[in-house]
Each structure stands twice: as C-alpha cells, then as structure tokens.
C-alpha cells in the first residue's frame, strides 16, 4: 500500500499544471523527433536537455518533460515506418514489415491507429509492471550473467529464420552480413578489426547510419529508378475505418507484445529492438498459418509496437532501481539525473522517491496524452502520403542527412550512409531482407562480448554456457525456435500457397 501512496504523491507532482504542460510539449516534440529518420529517442532527449537547462526547469519538471519526449519518440518512430517504409528509429524497424504493406493497400490510417492503440497498451502494461514489480525485477536483472545473455541472444538469432521473406537462406545470409559488419572496429581485447587505420571506424559502424542508409537512401534510389521507368503508382488513401472489433482483434497481440517487450527492456543490454523483434516473431508463431504476416496483418503492426513501447518503459526499471541504463536513451536520462544532483543506484527509489514516482506518474499521463494526441492526428500524418514522392523523398533524405550530421559532426558518416544506401539498393534488388542485417549489426557485438566474458570467467571452459537453470531454459527455447519452423514450416507453406495468390515483394 506504501507504493500506492507514493504513486498518488507522484500524480500530485505530475498533474501540477506546469508539469502537465511540459509533458504535453515533450510528447509532441518527441513524436516529431521519433518520426524523423536518423533522429532516434536518444538523440531527441540529448538535443532537448539544453532546452530543459536553459528554461531553468526544476528537476522533476525537467525529468517529466524528457520522459514524455522519450515516450513520444517511441510513438513517432512508427509513423515513417508505416507511411514510407523507413523506420524512424531502430525499434520501429519491425513495424515496417506489416505496416508498410497495409499502407500500400490503402489502409495507412488503420495501421497508424492500430499502432497507436498497441503502443498505448504496451506502455500501459510496462508502466504497471514497473510500478508493481520494479524491486523484484531489479533482482531478476542481476541474475543475468554473461552466459545467460549469450543464450538470450542465441534465442533471438534462432527465431530469426521465421521473420521475413519466403527464402530462409536469404534471411540467414542477411543476418551473416550484419554480423560481419558488426566485427568492424576495436574488439574487446583492443585488437583492431577491418579499421584500415581510419579513426572513424575504430568504434565500429553506428547502426543509426546503417539504418538510415539501408532504408531511407535505398528508398530514394528505388524511387529514382521508378521515375526513370515511367513513375510509381501513388498509394491510395482511404478514410479511417476502425471498428471496436478491429481493436479487440489486436488486443491479445498487443498484450503479448507488451509483456515480452517489458521483459526485454528490463534486461540492460537487451533493449527495445530485441523487444519488438521477439514480440513480432513470437506473434507470428502463435498466430501461425491463420495470419497473413508480412502482407499487412494488423497483428503484425500491433505486436512489435506494443513490444517496443513496453521495452522503453521496461528499460526504466534497471535505470531507476539499479542506476544502470538499459538503452541509449536511458543513458542520456541518467546523465540528466546525475547533473540534477541525484545519485543513480539502488537507493534512488527511496532517496528520491518524489522524482522517481513523479516520473512514473508522468509516464502514465504521457501515454494517455499520446493516445489522445495520436488518434486525431492520424489524418494529418496520412496526408503526408498524398505529398508527391518527388517532393517527399528528397525532404526525408535531407532530414536524414542533417540528423546524421548533427549527431557526429563528421562528413565521413554521411559518405558512409550513402554507401549503405547503395548496399541497401543492391540487397533489395536481390530480394534479401534488410531487417536481419540490422539485427546482426545490433546484436552481434553484444553477443560476442558476452561469450568472451563467459569464457573469461570460466577460464575457457565452455560448460559455463549452460551452467544455470536460466541459461538452460533459454537454450531450450532457442532450440525450439530453430527446429520447429523447419518441421512445421513446409506444412504451413503448402497451406499458405493455397490461400495466397498475389505475390508482393516484402521483407525489407
């Protein structure tokens, strides 16, 4: 009951008129930042920190505004995924898979509305989880050692086969390509790999550059090609037709996605991308043959959206209870807390209860605000689609260039992004899906690091990898994820072939 009292106090803080106003401002700015390719939540929050300082905001107000920016950015990331097939940030990548096909079928408004509802459900589940279980979950995160993390990443890769496209070998190829790119940079022992003495490569390839290049620049290249060959069909946009039945339909998916995302978010080093990824692949397995996943299934939009929003709230658990950032954005938020004279660590919940609970209450309020903001705005976002691509795509590309440059201030990254764009164009021509490339790039370094750490601790004994019950459990899940599709897959595919006539190029 103590918790409830704290929460009520928290609402008292968050509902103060000026805090509410800044929450609203933050949510709007966040949505905008999230929607722009190249500017993810981490950069959004970082860019807005000076604003919080120059406005001379009190610690609680500053934190409330920036958590709203964070939540807003997770909402915003999906907009360009659905409308343009360009993810606004890395967790929004999975939303492309079914969101863009929906838009192509003229159901952009539905896709946006569904994703807003699913995001809300995901955040709500995760925030409630955060309130009720934060201390317990902090201990759960502590039980994850290197071996358990390694098994977790293996689980992610094992389920990769089922994610995109018709040809699993191409998915594997794409993931390997991502893993290969991930080896660039100074490795864990200080050895340089494929850096060729270029300073900019020492820390490896920044995945934001890879995402913007692979998705946005390649999209532009495709567009240019289409124009040269007679022009692209404009996507028809119909009015929002969403019934309660549709919303009820996506509820189970949103719920499962939210829970999974939350768990992934709680583990520092797993993060929102893994949350939305696992939510999508699992949903595909649960729904199985009945769904048209990859071809515009609303549940394929709902699951990863709930997943990534669940994960973003989940990432606050290690941040608030252990002082450990679970993602890039929480790292920035943590830095803000430190500069506000708050010591991160296990005592933050007790020593700074007013701020912590104010933030949690703000998160709940922010999510309501975002839902209310987002549903009426669907119409405006969809209007974007009626802007002729010849204007829209160059603007998006320009924003991407400015965004990337604003992060690193080096032109090298811009050339690199263009190179990734060309690579993305070639891969898409070969019908190799792009999502596994990014996943390999994102998860590869963490997986390698944890394997090395595990072996370092055991002095080279490989048995350490399945030494705990938790690790064994994760390995079993990974094995099921790997073997099941190869047995069930062909059966499903035969059935699907009967159902599906039209063949659309999806998977990127």
């Amino acid at each position, binding site marked *: 009951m103590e918790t409830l009292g704290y929460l009520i106090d928290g609402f008292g803080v968050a509902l103060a008129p000026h805090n509410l106003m800044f929450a609203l401002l933050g949510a709007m700015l966040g949505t905008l930042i999230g929607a722009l390719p190249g500017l993810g939540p981490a950069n959004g929050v970082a860019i807005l920190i*000076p604003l919080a300082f120059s406005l001379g905001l009190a610690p609680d107000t500053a934190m409330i505004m920036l958590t709203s920016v964070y939540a807003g950015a997770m909402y915003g990331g999906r907009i360009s995924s659905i409308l343009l097939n360009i993810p606004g940030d890395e967790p929004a990548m999975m939303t492309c898979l079914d969101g863009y096909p929906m838009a192509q079928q003229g159901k952009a408004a539905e896709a946006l509305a569904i994703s807003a509802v699913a995001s809300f459900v995901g955040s709500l589940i995760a925030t409630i989880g955060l309130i009720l279980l934060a201390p317990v979950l902090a201990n759960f995160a502590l039980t994850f050692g290197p071996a358990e993390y390694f098994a977790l990443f293996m689980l992610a890769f094992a389920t990769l086969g089922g994610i995109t496209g018709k040809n699993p070998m191409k998915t594997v190829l794409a993931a390997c390509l991502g893993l290969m790119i991930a080896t660039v940079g100074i490795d864990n022992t200080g050895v340089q790999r494929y850096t060729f003495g270029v300073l*900019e490569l020492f*820390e490896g390839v920044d995945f934001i550059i890879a995402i913007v290049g692979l998705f946005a620049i390649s999209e532009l290249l495709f567009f240019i090609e289409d124009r040269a060959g007679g022009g692209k069909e404009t996507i028809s946009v119909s009015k929002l037709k969403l019934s309660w039945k549709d919303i009820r339909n996506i509820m189970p998916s949103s719920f499962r996605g939210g829970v999974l995302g939350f768990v992934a978010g709680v583990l520092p080093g797993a993060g929102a991308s893994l949350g939305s990824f696992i939510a999508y692949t699992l949903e595909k397995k649960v729904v199985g043959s009945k769904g048209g996943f990859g071809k515009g299934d609303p549940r394929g939009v709902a699951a990863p959206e709930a997943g990534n929003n669940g994960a973003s709230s989940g990432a606050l658990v290690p941040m608030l209870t*252990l002082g*450990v950032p679970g993602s890039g954005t929480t790292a920035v938020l943590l830095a803000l807390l430190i500069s506000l004279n708050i010591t991160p660590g296990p*005592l933050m919940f007790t020593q700074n209860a007013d701020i912590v609970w104010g933030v949690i209450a703000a998160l709940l309020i922010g999510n309501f605000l975002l839902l209310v903001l987002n549903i009426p705005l669907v119409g405006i976002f969809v209007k974007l689609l009626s802007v002729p691509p010849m204007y829209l795509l160059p603007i998006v590309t320009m924003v991407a260039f400015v965004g990337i440059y604003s992060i690193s*201030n080096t032109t090298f990254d811009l050339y690199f992004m263009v190179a990734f764009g060309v690579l993305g164009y070639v891969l898409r021509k070969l019908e190799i899906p792009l999502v596994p490339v990014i996943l390999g790039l994102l998860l590869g370094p963490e997986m390698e690091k944890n394997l090395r750490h595990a072996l*370092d*601790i055991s002095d080279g004994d490989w048995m350490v990898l399945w030494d705990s019950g938790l690790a064994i459990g994760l390995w079993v899940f990974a094995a099921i994820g790997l073997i099941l599709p190869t047995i069930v897959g062909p059966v499903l595919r035969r059935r699907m072939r009967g159902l599906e006539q039209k063949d659309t190029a999806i998977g990127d």
Partner: protein
Amino acid sequence: MSLPMPVKLIAIATLALGASSALAFEPKGKVECLAPADPGGGWDFTCRSVGNVLETLDLVPASVQTINMAGAGGGVAFAHTVSKRAGDDQLLVAASTATTTRLAQGQFPGMDASMVNWVGALGADYGVIAVANDSEYQDLPALMEALKTDPRSVKFAGGSAKGGWDHLKVLIAAQEAGVENLPRIAYLSYNNGGEAMTQVVGGHVDAFTGDITEAQGFMDSGDLRVLAVLSEERLPGEFSEIPTAREQGIDALGPNWRGFYMPADISDEAREYWVGAMDTIYESDEWKEVMSSNGLMPFHMTAGEFQDFVTQQIVDIETLSKDIGLVQ
C-alpha cells in the same frame, strides 16, 4: 537551436566592439566546446557544466555551444582539432585520463600530446577497487594475495575498454603489490560502470574497478564494498570511511582528471586568457557546487604545470602498458 534575439544582438555588438580592442585577447561571439563522445558521458558533462559556469561568470561574451563528436575514444575529435582547427582560439576540447591513456598506447595513429595546447584540469574522480558485499575479500592486500597465488583467481569488471583506464587501475595496484604475470589478470570490459557493477553485485564477476562517483549508489545501498580508493589521502565528506590503497601498503594512485585542451597555433594572449579562465572557474563558488554535487575531488593544474603532468602521465602509462604487454 537558434539563439534568442537579444543574445544575438549582444553577440553582434561584441563582435563589432571587439575589433577595436585587439590588444588583450577576449573571446568574441560563440565559443565551442567539443565533447569527443555521445551525449551523456563524462566528457559531455565536462563541456556542459563548464560551459554553464563560463556563461554565469561572464568569461564568454555569448553562449558556449557543446558539440558532440564521438569516435575512436576521442580520436576523431583529437584528429579534427589537430588537422582542421589549428589557430582556432575559441575552441575548448574536453579531455580526461582516458585521452592520455589512448595517446600513450598509440591509439591515435600519427598524433601525440604535443600537437595541442593543454590548458587546464578542473577536478578529478578517483579510482576505486570494490567487491560485492558478501565477498570473501576484506581488504585490498587480501585481494592482491589471491592474485599473487593465481592471477586468474579474481576477475575484474569495469566500464572502459581492455587496456583502458579502469583496466590500468587494477594493473597499477597489482604491480605495486608485487603481483607477477600481470597480463594474465582477467579484465572484462562493459559498456559503462553501471553494467559492470551489476555483474559484480549479481555475483557473476569477482571485483569492480571504476571511479568513486560510479560506485556511490551501490556503496550507499550496501551491495558493494569499496576495498580501496586510489588517492593520495582519504577523500573528504561521506567518503572519508574508505581506506586508501596507500595506507594499506599498496602505493597505487588513480586520479581520473577532467580538463581541456585547445588547438595548436593559438596566440600567447589567447592561451593566457583561457588559462586564467580555468583558474577563475576553479576558484568560483559555482564550480565548487558543481564539483561537490557530482563527486569531483580537488585537482587543479593549468598551463605549463598541466602540460608537464600530461607528458609525465603519458610516459608512465606507456611504460606500464609495455611492461604488461598491452603495447609493443
């Protein structure tokens, strides 16, 4: 973000006025502070907090803009300062022991410390070696004894890369304690000190190496026991309970200073101005408040003294890195 109108006007006015008073150096218009990492880290904090104090103390005419330039652990920013910004007397670059470590180990190819102007250090964060509360090791000598018998018996986790400052602190202490076969000591590198600490508190790794400010949270909660702080004397205030390594008979020091360098080829007047500014900041109440609220300890040097300190630290780290086989 654009400047508000009045600030712009003042900036223009100062530019116009500045031209007539060219004798003594004064910064004109916007001053830039380059943070060689992504937002949120120590360098970013150095730039933003010092920028604020510079503005409050009217040491700069307009604003201090923090620019983040991540890459190669500060190497990209160092190269940028050397090759593109020579002679720019309105640019400060944040630096710390991590910078000297990389310079010493030759990780900025073709570049060395003499290619920039080291203007001053404004505080330090001291290194600690800590264990989980239920650990069998009660003090630093006990831990070192275990390493002497078997260098693989204690595994360390820290937030810097292998060979980086957190790793070196362990090796400095082990070398002082007379541990042989230093390269065999296991060091696991994590993304940040916080992640490394959860692994130690969770019982997966034996000991934590990092800075005192990182350890504070888990120390207060009683999950982490700091065996030694690598400072000359005991730290003030709430940290005074923690014994130094020196008083336990292991003469190891590990200050992680925070300071700045500037591009080469700036005028003597400009250098004098910025060195003076560093002294003014260090003396100010505003900075003292920043230091106490962020756990920074007294540590101040400017100009020639700082340049010598940096040179000496680089020599020391280079020797150590060679001794333990980190560099050839």
